[in-house]
């Protein structure tokens, strides 16, 4: 689009003042955002016995990483992290693949079911997950599944991580299709037409032209999906009844007792658990921040 426009490096005039204001504003906002997190971190660095007695915002008598150590061992995080990855990685790959193909088909081509399909996927996304829990539970329970194809021996899909993957894929494909199809609409049509002239097949267009252009949104979706699936507790717990098969979110739950819960320990556990999601964000965010230009439409 707008290929007739040329880039002009234009020195900012009022810029200096407004830039300074921008930094001050963003920094203030960022600090505001961090207050709750740092407060929790401060609690995580102190023993429960201390914050319990003197309050979370009292002067520290001891600062220690003991909560983090305890959270790691008592939560058996190495084990539960493996379970999580077993669910999250295949699920995300499938979600992004299926939703890309789907979004491509409905947003780049005109055929009869375009809008209907898109509506189906978008609307599916509105269903609160809990509403589907009973029927899905019974479906999985009554779907025989050979034990050899799962690492549990329940005889049905219920209780397997595969069931959790299926639910995530089915659900999140709806959301990602909706988002991706909207992003694909911002990609100029000339690209596809040019490819057609070159005699490129549909699949080549998809893989070689559209997908690379969708990198920013795929990265954003991968980040969000990783965060959600990684933090999912609901499906993992209702579908997997064996404690040692459950994902890392159950590590946090394991640290809470029937009545008493050591919140500082739980805060420490939550901080540890949040690390991978932040790392994923940092890794993927360069895909969707400024500095790189889309570029392709000028070609």
């Amino acid at each position: 689009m707008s290929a007739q426009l040329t880039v002009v490096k234009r020195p900012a005039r009022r810029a200096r003042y407004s830039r300074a204001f921008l930094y001050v504003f963003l920094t203030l906002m960022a600090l505001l955002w961090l207050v709750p997190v740092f407060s929790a971190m401060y609690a995580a660095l102190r023993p429960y016995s201390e914050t319990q007695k003197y309050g979370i915002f009292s002067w520290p008598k001891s600062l220690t990483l003991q909560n983090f150590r305890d959270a790691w061992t008592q939560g058996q995080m190495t084990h539960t992290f493996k379970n999580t990855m077993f669910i999250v990685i295949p699920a995300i790959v499938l979600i992004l693949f299926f939703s890309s193909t789907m979004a491509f088909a409905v947003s780049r081509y005109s055929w009869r079911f375009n809008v209907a399909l898109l509506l189906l996927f978008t609307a599916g996304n509105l269903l609160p997950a809990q509403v589907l829990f009973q029927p899905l539970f019974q479906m999985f329970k009554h779907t025989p599944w050979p034990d050899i194809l799962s690492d549990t021996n329940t005889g049905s899909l219920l209780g397997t991580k595969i069931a959790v993957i299926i639910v995530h894929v089915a659900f999140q494909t709806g959301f990602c299709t909706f988002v991706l199809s909207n992003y694909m609409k911002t990609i100029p049509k000339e690209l596809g037409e040019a490819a057609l002239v070159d005699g490129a097949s549909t699949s080549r267009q998809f893989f070689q032209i559209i997908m690379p252009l969708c990198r920013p949104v795929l990265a954003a979706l991968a980040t969000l999906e990783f965060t959600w699936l990684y933090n999912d507790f609901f499906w993992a717990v209702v579908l997997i009844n064996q404690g040692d098969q459950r994902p890392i979110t159950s590590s946090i739950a394991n640290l809470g007792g029937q009545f008493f819960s050591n919140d500082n320990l739980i805060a420490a556990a939550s901080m540890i658990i949040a690390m991978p999601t932040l790392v994923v964000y940092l890794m993927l965010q360069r895909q969707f921040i400024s500095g790189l230009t889309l570029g392709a439409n000028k070609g």
Partner: protein
Amino acid sequence: MEADLTVPVTTAAPPKGRRRRRRYSQLSRGDKVTLWLMAGIPTVIHVVFVWVPAFMTISLSFTKWDGLKLGTWKLVGFANYWAVFTVFDGKFFPALFNNVILLVFLSLCSIVGVLFAYLLDKNIRGSAIYQSVFYMPVVLSLAIVGFIWKGVMYSPGQGLFNVVLGRTAQGNQIDWVGNAEKIFTFHVPGLDTPLGLTKNFAALLVAMAWRHIGYVMVLYLAGLKSVDPALREAAAIDGCNEWQAFRQVVFPVMKPINVVVFVITVIEALRAFDIIVALKSPPGTKVLGVLVRDNLVGEGGGQVGLGSAYGVVLLVLCLVFIIWYLINNYRETDA
């Protein structure tokens, strides 16, 4: 927000004719097969595991069932719906009202999220750090979100707010999360209790904003990537100020992404329940999603019929809203 989204396409957008899509009939057989597979497989998965259960849930909403054994349900017609609107009117309507509040509030938050994205896209130094900070609430698990807001920020005896305000003494504490007194009320004919915004729901809104803004920011940032920087430069040359450039150049180009933000805002507002449940759903803070959850899952979830009825009501509300919007939207772009 919605009014903004329907801003007419300005000159900066490409001419309509060039946006026309490929016709299915123009494709070769191989391409047709590819396309069928591309659309078919996801559709089958989605339909089987989302829509089939959804229709089962709709069926279940006409039954009374404890969820224990298949076939033990009893058909009760519309009794569950009748119960939702009469027996539980004291729960349903306040929850619905809270959803409305949430919708308005999250729409404002979405605007802030868009603003953050726009500002962070301006090639500023340390953008990655700012972004990570704003995104952090999204990555934190609900366990810690619950602890942060209940135990650290809003705790009556030791929470940050009361510490800062000097209100931690016995008898002088502000009960942020537990106080269900209403800030304002109004009477709706036919309802026994007046509707209104409770103080603790207002407190919970802060926690939800904290999470929602980062979420919108990420999606919008990804969208901004596809705005040609040349467009902005051109706008600047034309003498547009920052606001004009955003409103007249960036925003219209971002229309499909604006749709995304709009739709997720509606979804989040109507479907919300997780932060409220993480704070153990204090009195006066129920939204429809919490009612669905309370009746369907958990130890109290023995009323599958009633819970499903709540779910169907919620679903219908969402669907009406979104279908109306999407149809309007797609009619315009696909014409």
